[in-house]
C-alpha cells in the first residue's frame, strides 16, 4: 500500500509536467488545427534558458530559493514565449490556409532545425549538462511516505498554472477571442478579432508553459541536453490526443493519466522496457473506441 501511494505521488508529479506540455499542444491545435512538433524543443530551450540565467540571477537573489527560482522561471518563460511567437511568425504564418500536411511537415522541419542547431558545438553541444539546483530538494516524511519536495513543487506549480490557464481562457477578453478563433476563424475575423494577434498570443502562452514544464522536468531529470524535449514532448503529445486534442481539461487529464501509467508500468518488472509501447498501445485502443479522444467532441462532417 505504501509503495502504491509512493508511486501515485511520483506518477502525479510526472503527469503534471506532461499536462503542462500537453496544454501547449492542445491550445495551438485549438486555434490553428495542427500539431506543433517544435513544442518539445521550446521546452528544451526553456530548460537551457534557466541554465544560463541562473548564474546571473544568483548574483541578485539567493539560489536555491523560492524567489530566485520564480524569477528564473519567469524570465525563461518570457524568452520562450518570444521564441514561440517568432517561430509562428517566421515558419507558420506564411502557411495559413495551406493543406494540413504542409504545415505538419514544416513543424517537423522546425523541430529538427532547433534540435540540430542546438546540438552543434557552437551552440549548446550534444553533451549532457547538470541542471542547477533552483530549489533545494528535501525529503518530507508524511504518514510513512517519503515525498520529495521537488514533486510537491511540480504539482503545486502545475495546479497554479492550470488555474491561471482556465482563468485566461474563460475569464479574459483575449481568452474569449481565443475560443472564438478556435470555434470559427472566419466568424471571429468578421467580429473584428485580429486573428494573427490571437494566434501569436496562443503560441506565446503555450511556449511559456513549455518553458516552465521544461524547468520542472529538468529538476527531476539527471541533466539537460538538446534532445531532452523529445521524450516528454512525445508523451505530452500522446496525452493531448488521448484527452481529445483542442480540449484543455482533456489535455490535463491525459497528461495525468499518462504520468500515472508510466510510473506504475515502470514499477512492474519486465514491463518497464515497454513503457513507450504501452503508452501508444493505450492511445490506439482509446482512439479505436473514442476517435476524438476521451473528452473531445466528435464532429459531424457536413456535406
Amino acid at each position, binding site marked *: 500500500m505504501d509503495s502504491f501511494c509512493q508511486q501515485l505521488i511520483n506518477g502525479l508529479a510526472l503527469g503534471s509536467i506532461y499536462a503542462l506540455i500537453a496544454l501547449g499542444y492542445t491550445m495551438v*491545435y485549438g486555434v490553428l488545427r495542427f500539431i506543433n512538433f517544435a513544442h518539445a524543443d521550446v521546452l528544451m530551450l526553456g530548460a537551457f534558458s534557466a541554465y544560463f540565467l541562473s548564474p546571473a540571477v544568483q548574483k541578485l537573489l539567493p539560489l536555491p530559493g523560492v524567489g530566485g527560482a520564480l524569477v528564473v522561471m519567469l524570465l525563461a518563460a518570457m524568452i520562450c514565449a518570444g521564441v514561440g511567437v517568432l517561430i509562428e511568425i517566421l515558419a507558420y504564418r506564411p502557411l495559413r490556409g495551406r493543406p494540413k500536411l504542409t504545415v505538419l511537415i514544416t513543424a517537423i522541419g522546425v523541430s529538427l532545425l532547433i534540435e540540430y542547431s542546438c546540438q552543434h558545438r557552437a551552440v549548446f553541444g550534444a553533451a549532457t549538462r547538470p541542471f542547477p539546483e533552483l530549489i533545494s530538494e528535501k525529503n518530507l516524511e508524511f504518514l510513512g511516505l517519503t515525498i520529495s519536495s521537488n514533486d510537491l513543487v511540480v504539482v503545486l506549480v502545475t495546479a497554479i498554472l492550470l488555474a491561471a490557464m482556465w482563468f485566461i481562457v474563460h475569464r479574459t477578453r483575449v481568452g474569449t477571442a481565443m475560443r472564438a478563433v478556435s470555434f470559427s476563424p472566419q466568424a471571429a475575423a468578421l467580429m473584428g478579432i485580429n486573428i494573427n494577434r490571437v494566434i501569436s498570443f496562443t503560441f506565446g502562452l503555450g511556449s511559456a508553459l513549455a518553458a516552465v514544464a521544461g524547468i520542472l522536468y529538468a529538476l527531476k531529470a539527471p541533466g539537460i541536453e538538446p534532445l531532452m524535449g523529445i521524450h516528454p514532448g512525445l508523451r505530452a503529445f500522446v496525452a493531448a490526443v488521448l484527452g481529445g486534442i483542442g480540449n484543455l481539461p482533456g489535455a490535463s487529464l491525459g497528461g495525468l493519466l499518462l504520468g500515472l501509467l508510466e510510473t506504475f508500468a515502470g514499477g512492474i518488472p519486465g514491463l518497464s522496457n515497454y513503457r513507450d509501447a504501452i503508452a501508444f498501445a493505450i492511445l490506439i485502443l482509446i482512439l479505436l473506441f473514442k476517435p476524438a479522444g476521451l473528452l473531445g467532441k466528435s464532429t459531424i462532417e457536413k456535406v
Partner: protein
Amino acid sequence: MIATGGKRWLFLGVALAVVLSYVSGGLNSYDRGIWIDCGINIILAVSLNLILGHTGQFSLGHAGFMSVGGYTAAKITLVCAALLPVSMQPVLLFVAILAGGLLAALAGLLVGIPSLRLRGDYLAIVTLGFAEIIRVIMQNTEAVGGASGLSGIPKYTTLGWTFALAAVTIYVVAGLVNSTYGRGFLAVSDDEVAASSMGINPVRYKVTAFVVGAFFAGLAGALYAHHKQTLTPTGFDWLKSIDIVVMVILGGMGRTPGVILAAILLTWLPEQLRVFSDYRMIIYSLLIILLMILRPQGLFTFKRKKKPNPVPA
C-alpha cells in the same frame, strides 16, 4: 506482364537500368552502395506515395513496416544460410524478401484497421505509435538481438535485385492507381464523403493502400538488411519515417516520376554534403521548411498552363 501506354515504358526503362547496372562492373563498392541505397529509397518512397500521395492517408509509420520486413528477412537468412548450399543463395534471398514483405503487409493490415475511423492528425499519431510499438518490441526481443540489433547478415543485396524490385514496385503502384479500380484511391483522397456516396468503399481502399504500401516497405527493409548487414532498432525510429515522407513531398504527392527523382536526390545529396557533416542536418531541416513555404507542391511538379481567369478583376 502486359502493361499499356506509359506504364510499359516505365517498366522497360527501369528494367534497362537493371541490365545497365550489371554491365557496368566498373563501379567501386562505395558508388554501388549508394546506388543500392537509391533503389531502396525509391521502393520506400513509391510505396509510401501510394498511401500518402494517392490515397491521402497520413502515415508516419513507414519505417515500422520497413523494420518488420528487414528483421524477418534477416532472421530467415541468418538461420538458413548455413544450412543451404551457396547455389541456393538467390532462392533463399527471394524467400526471405517475400516473407519480409508478407509480414510487413500483415502489419499494414493491423495499422489499416484503425485508419477506418481516424483521419488526419489522429491517423498520423496512430501510425507513428504503431511504428514506435514495433521498435520497442524489437528492442526487447532477444531473438532479434534486442537493443544491439542483428549483425553479420550475409550481403546478398545486389544492384540487380534492388532495381528489379524497384521496377516491380513502380509497376504495381502505377498500375494499381491507373487502373479502373485504382481511381477509388484518388477519390478517397479527394473527398471521402463524396467517394462513398458514389458507391466507393473508402475502408477497402484505405486498407488496400496500407497493405500494399507496407508490403513494398517490407521488401525495401529486407533489401536494406542484406545491404547494410546490420540492423538496429534505433535505425527505424520516426526520423526514418519522416525522411521517407519528405521524399514523397519533395517529389510531389501522388506523382510517381517526381517521387523517384526525389528519392534519388535525397540519397545522393547527403553523400555530397559529407564535407559539411556538422551542418548537414541543419541544412536538411532548413530545406524542409523553405520547401514547404516556397514550393509545397513539390520540386518536380510543374503546373500546366494556367487557365485564364473567367471573371475579369
